[in-house]
């Protein structure tokens, strides 16, 4: 099962490689990873999408927590959350294809952010299904290049992040980690 793990980490050099190194060193898989500073510039938030059995996910969250630079770890899958991904898709847009490209972009409320005589570059933001869907629809036109940010996710307002670490610890402590 896929998990979306939010990691709040000190914005120090080496922190990112410590985290990615933990995954590679222990044979855990990273599907996507995105990172950027938070409101507090001394802290970065990472969103890591990973897959594994519950036992592996428990190890991942505990091992992440153990890293000295990591402030907080939340597995969003257990919470209500909002997720987004952005993709830039450079697609063939010869005169005969332009209408179709525009139509697809319109359906998905995507933006054309660049155009040239033979291509459009389309920007799409949405959850992962939406991004996959537009890619599939554009594919017949011929996608020349595609770049995705990986997913970012944030817990919905009612979940207080401060409480979450407590929950996680309690869960681990009481042996109920799923």
């Amino acid at each position: 099962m896929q998990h979306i793990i939010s990691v709040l980490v000190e914005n120090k050099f080496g922190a990112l490689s410590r985290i990615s190194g933990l995954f590679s060193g222990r044979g855990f898989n990273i599907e996507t990873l995105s990172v950027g500073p938070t409101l507090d510039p001394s802290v970065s938030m990472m969103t890591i999408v990973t897959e594994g059995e519950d036992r592996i996910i428990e190890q991942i969250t505990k091992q992440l927590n153990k890293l000295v630079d990591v402030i907080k770890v939340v597995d969003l899958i257990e919470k209500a959350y909002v997720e987004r991904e952005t993709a830039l898709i450079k697609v063939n847009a010869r005169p005969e294809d332009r209408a179709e490209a525009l139509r697809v972009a319109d359906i998905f409320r995507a933006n054309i952010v660049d155009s040239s005589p033979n291509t459009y570059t389309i920007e799409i933001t949405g959850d992962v299904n939406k991004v996959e869907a537009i890619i599939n629809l554009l594919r017949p036109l011929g996608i020349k290049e595609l770049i995705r940010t990986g997913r970012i996710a944030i817990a919905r307002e009612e979940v207080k992040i401060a409480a979450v670490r407590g929950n996680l610890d309690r869960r681990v402590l009481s042996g109920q980690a799923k």
Partner: protein
Amino acid sequence: MKLSGSQILIECLRKENVKVVFAYPGGVNLPIFDVLYDEKEIEVILCRHEQGGTHMAEGYARVTGRPGVVLVTSGPGATNTVTAIADAYMDSTPLVVLTGQVPTQSIGNDAFQEADVVGITRPCTKYNILVKDVNDLAKAVKEAFYIATSGRPGPVLVDLPKDVVLAKTEFKYPDKVYIRSYSPNYKGNKWQIKQAAESIMKARRPVIYAGGGVLASGASQELLDLAEGMQVPVTQTLMGLGGFPGTHPLSLGMLGMHGTYWANMSIHHSDLIIAVGSRFDDRVTGRVADFAPGAKIIHIDIDPTSIHKVIKADIPIVGDVKVILSGLNQILKFSENGQSGKNQAWLSQISDWRKEHPLAYDQGDKIIKPQYVIERIYEATRGKAIVSTDVGQHQMWVAQYYKFDRPRTFPNSGGLGTMGYGLPAAIGAQKAFPDDLVFCVAGDGSIVMNIQEMATAVSYNLPVKIAVINNKYLGMVRQWQELFYDRRYSSSYLGDGPDFVKLAEAFGAVGLRAKEIGEVDQVLQEALAVKGPVMMDFQVDEEENCYPMVPAGAAIHEMVFSDPEEAEPKKQGEKEQKKADGVLTA
């Protein structure tokens, strides 16, 4: 007054009460050595190889419980420490490793003797940091000591560019450390401790399985109170030996691959395992699927990642072993439950197992058996020595036959299994306790891996007594090849030499040799009479195997005792599997 980075570093070490630094100089750390030249309170031990120096620091840390400090130069100096750092990481040994680094403006330019040591050691340190500004230095060192020694201890590396140790600034040593992302939990959950107490009262076949965490947290007394108070037998991991007196009637000795039969049977048949500061290493559990099928498991550990990693715990308690055990003892003491008799049947079952398959070997009247040497060392030192070992059969025999009664007397490489650990670790231990008797029991393979440290022992007149159990083979490898590879002794025969007596003499130490059983005691007595370092060459039976043994892939109660044929896998299919396991785990 402004101080240079080097002076600041040394001031920090003084504030941390560091008495000994194991060190090796080089271009970029010369400014630091220059300050050390006038330093009176901190003694510098010049090792002969940085791996050796780092193992010395490990030995020092293991016997004192205080962090070992290492100072080396950049590039090759730093990379030479890596094996020992990884060793310390696996065995939760607190180290502060100070590495020189090329000047900040040269970092990343493939400068002479540059290595990305922060990158290289990231997976095998608890934490590491490159100090880029002299103003951050004092804080970095303070944090390094704090992180190395708190929570689950481990090695921390501080990388010090040359321009940083030359630059000057005001010295301010922070008196407290606050790291928002790091706060080990010492207390343990009260409710879970209570649950654990209830389970202990109810259990009829309980066993305590104690690991290195008992030593790390200094919980031997609490462990003894628990075991005696509730009449619970105690088995220990290799790392845990000494944490509970080996001569105590409730001591079962070591468990696991070369553990005692009765320890493994107790675990297998128990109804409650109280795992204390131990992490269910695969050398202990054997085949995980069949580990202790009828047991409820209480797991006490400071490191939450240890819990549920290998074995699912029924009552996990995260926190400091000493704090938790004393909490547990409080509850048990005040409980009404008359405890004394309840485990009686269990204890007598265990003593039957003890009689059924005692630790044994056949000592004839001529060729020396390696186990005999260990027993004689135990007698000659009256069990009072600090004994370091290298890695291999001899290490297991020491674990089996030397009964460690005191904590912190058995530095050896458990988690990483690093050949070459023993001699330098003994030197570090002897430096920590100059008046104690320190033995290093080594194999003829292992000892040569850091033999150069003989020079260190001699030049500082550290009177370590090295007992080489010389079987002319990489014995443990030969044993696996005998059992699992049809005696095809590929690259495990060492043959004669070096001549350990001459070697000792070449280094300026005393060399002694025993070839027959009658010479063993004599050699030991002679060695003990010498004030300086001694190397004893015990030429033992070349083909003796270490038993009992749980073959790779077997469950821990499926032990073999002496006949190699018994160790042959029952089914042909299993054989391939065991071969594979062997390759992976030897």
